[in-house]
């Protein structure tokens, strides 16, 4: 139950001549959250960016477009000196730009050439099997040449009935014909072939035998293709050669551009500047000494008191140990806490895995998912994935403990259970279920807990867990309110809920035990508590009363979702084992199919085992638990600075 880091508001004032040094110093500390200046009647204005801003952003755009063209992704950082990167930037950027544009132009040109060759090839194909030199197709005075395709078939006899002076070449497959006819008879022959659906083909302009030409074209195509490949390889080699430079210069330029544009966010007059912002109180001295040493003490820094109405504007930084840190992801997914609120990350560390484990509660799945999470954590170093894997590992520890409590392994029961209908054997011979005490509606509480045989008792147990969880929420809410508005407010708004529950509990005990005095006491406590609530939260609070029951019953999903997971697993087991031993005597060839069913079924259930318990555990935190105390909506602490990955000073 930690609170966000205590923040200090600080104002830095100085002459514009030391603005650059001040910005550099603040940037390097990476500890100062700058409040954007909004122009008002004070006479201060936001300033123009530094003169290098335009140049820097131009280069940044260029480097990013090159990076996206080359498809450069962030990789294992190779740290370079930022000074060296900046010095080499111009020449290397030019070199890179020129290299890439030359190569892309060449590729475009080659690809056009390839298209050209392809269309030449297409023109050639109909004449391939006739294989006449194209020079023979033209240059006659008394002969007409018809080259084209027909729909039907053309026999020599059909032509010879019109004229004797002809020469016909037919390719029956592509239905192309080449027909040489004396000019005098050409018209009549043309009529004949037109009747057959003749369509003229363009005769390629270059001479030569088609098969020979085709060979040449294909040779040329291969050459051009090779050239394209080698140019692309050249671009790839440029990519690997310049990747580190591009990543480093992107970083350096981003930093320069952020610094250069800071004057747009602060108040300035003709000669002075004011930087207003926040820093964690523990780091205030670091910021002061950094600014003082950079400006030789010329900047004036002072702390400002945080007024109560300003508390909404204080940026919020978590203050958690490394163990709790992954849970901040779950908090940020909902909303950052307000500065004045309790940060419930450390409570989530307990309650989230607890509920997840209660739902899943299976040794087998805990081991599979735990190993999976460890493997992913090892393989993927991304900052987004690491905390999620840590949360998954926390959840699996809890699942494992509940797995022992439930005696479950991949849907199998580990311990044998004696019921009225006989004994159900367990997976571990000799482990027998011990009956502890009677549960709800005739069921018995046992160890290990057989969830499928004590559903009503488990519903009761999960709703009780829910009530405890909700009351923890009320207590946190009480603490939030009591801290800012006093004990009485807290008691009326949040404490009254707990007293209402106590009243109901006393009355219930009275009714069940037949003790009417206790019933009246309970009812009186209930009425008093409702009046307190009416005073604390108004009529809204009273209207919300039935939701308490809804919220508590909502926790029965813990057993409901758990049961669905058990039933999927045990159904898979049943099908698989039925296939292996059809008549329980010998192993059939269906054993292979059974193994596939077993693996696929449990694979599916493993995936569901992350999603279903995860979502439901999350929902119980967000909706039921947070609803009792949490408002969120704090401003995220975002200090002016940059965590360098690819460069160093």
């Amino acid at each position, binding site marked *: 139950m930690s609170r966000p880091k205590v923040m200090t508001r600080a104002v830095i004032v100085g002459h514009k001549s030391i603005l650059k040094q001040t910005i550099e110093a603040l940037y390097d500390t990476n500890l100062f959250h700058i409040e954007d200046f909004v122009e008002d009647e004070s006479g201060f204005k936001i300033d123009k960016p530094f003169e290098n801003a335009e140049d820097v952003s131009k280069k940044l755009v260029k480097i990013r477009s090159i990076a996206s063209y080359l498809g450069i992704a962030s990789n294992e950082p190779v740290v370079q000196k930022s000074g060296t990167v900046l010095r080499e930037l111009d020449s290397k950027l030019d070199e890179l730009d020129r290299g890439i544009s030359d190569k892309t132009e060449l590729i475009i040109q080659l690809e056009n050439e390839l298209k050209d060759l392809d269309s030449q090839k297409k023109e050639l194909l109909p004449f391939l099997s006739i294989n006449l030199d194209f020079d023979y197709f033209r240059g006659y005075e008394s002969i007409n040449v018809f080259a084209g395709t027909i729909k039907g078939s053309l026999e020599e006899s059909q032509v010879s009935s019109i004229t004797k002076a002809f020469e016909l070449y037919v390719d029956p497959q592509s239905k192309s014909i080449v027909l040489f006819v004396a000019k005098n008879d050409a018209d009549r022959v043309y009529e004949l072939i037109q009747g057959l659906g003749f369509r003229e083909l363009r005769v390629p302009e270059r001479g030569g035998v088609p098969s020979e030409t085709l060979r040449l074209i294909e040779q040329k195509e291969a050459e051009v293709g090779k050239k394209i490949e080698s140019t692309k390889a050249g671009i790839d080699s440029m990519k690997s050669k310049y990747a580190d430079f591009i990543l480093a210069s992107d970083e350096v330029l981003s930093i320069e551009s952020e610094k250069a544009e800071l004057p747009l966010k602060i108040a300035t007059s003709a000669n002075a500047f004011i930087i207003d912002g926040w820093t964690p109180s523990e780091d205030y001295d670091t910021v002061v000494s950094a600014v003082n040493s950079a400006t030789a003490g010329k900047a004036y820094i002072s702390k400002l008191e945080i007024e109560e109405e300003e508390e909404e504007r204080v940026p919020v930084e978590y203050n958690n140990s490394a163990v709790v840190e992954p849970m901040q992801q779950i908090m*940020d*997914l*909902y*909303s950052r806490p307000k500065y004045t609120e309790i940060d419930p990350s450390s409570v989530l560390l307990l309650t989230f895995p607890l509920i997840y484990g209660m739902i899943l509660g299976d040794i087998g799945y805990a081991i599979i998912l735990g190993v999976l999470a460890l493997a992913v954590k090892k393989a993927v170093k991304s900052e987004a994935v690491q905390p999620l894997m840590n949360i998954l590992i926390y959840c699996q520890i809890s699942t494992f403990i509940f797995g022992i409590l439930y005696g479950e392994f991949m849907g199998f029961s580990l311990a044998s259970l004696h019921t009225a209908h006989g004994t159900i054997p367990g997976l571990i011979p000799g482990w027998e279920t011990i009956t502890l005490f009677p549960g709800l*509606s005739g069921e018995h509480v046992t160890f290990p807990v057989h969830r499928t045989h004590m*559903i*009503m008792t488990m*519903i009761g147990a999960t709703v009780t867990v829910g009530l405890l969880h909700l009351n923890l929420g009320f207590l946190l809410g009480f603490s939030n309110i009591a801290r800012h508005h006093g004990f009485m407010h807290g008691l009326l708004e949040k404490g009254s809920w707990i007293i209402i529950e106590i009243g109901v509990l006393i009355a219930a005990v009275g009714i069940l035990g037949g003790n009417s005095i206790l019933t009246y006491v309970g009812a009186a406590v209930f009425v008093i508590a409702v009046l307190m609530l009416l005073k604390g939260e108004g009529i809204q609070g009273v209207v919300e009363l039935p939701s308490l029951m*809804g919220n508590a*019953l*909502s926790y*029965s*999903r813990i057993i*409901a979702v758990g049961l669905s997971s058990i039933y999927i697993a045990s159904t898979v087991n049943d099908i698989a084992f039925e296939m292996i031993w059809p008549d329980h005597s010998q192993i059939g060839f269906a054993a292979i199919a059974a193994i596939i069913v077993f693996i696929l079924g449990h694979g599916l259930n493993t995936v569901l085992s992350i999603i279903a318990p995860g*979502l*439901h555990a*999350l*929902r119980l935190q*967000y*909706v039921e638990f947070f609803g009792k105390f949490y408002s969120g909506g704090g401003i995220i602490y975002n200090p002016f600075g940059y965590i360098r990955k690819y460069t160093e000073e």
Partner: protein
Amino acid sequence: MVGEDLVVAASGPILDAAGMKALGAALAITITGLASAWAEKEIGTAAIGAMAENEGLFGKGLILTVIPETIVIFGLVASLLINSA
């Protein structure tokens, strides 16, 4: 043989008490399931739309989408109560 079974089945009541109970439990969970699905469909569509505008709304969208899930949980509790009564 098969015919005999049919005659026996037809002569008795179509649903005995246990059958009615089972049917009641089935209806409790079916109808609430459909209701949850219907409600979640509407909210889910809107949540996806909102997320397209602003990815930061994923958390809130998720919460809103799973709120109607409570309906089917209540249905499940009701059907379990019917079964155990």
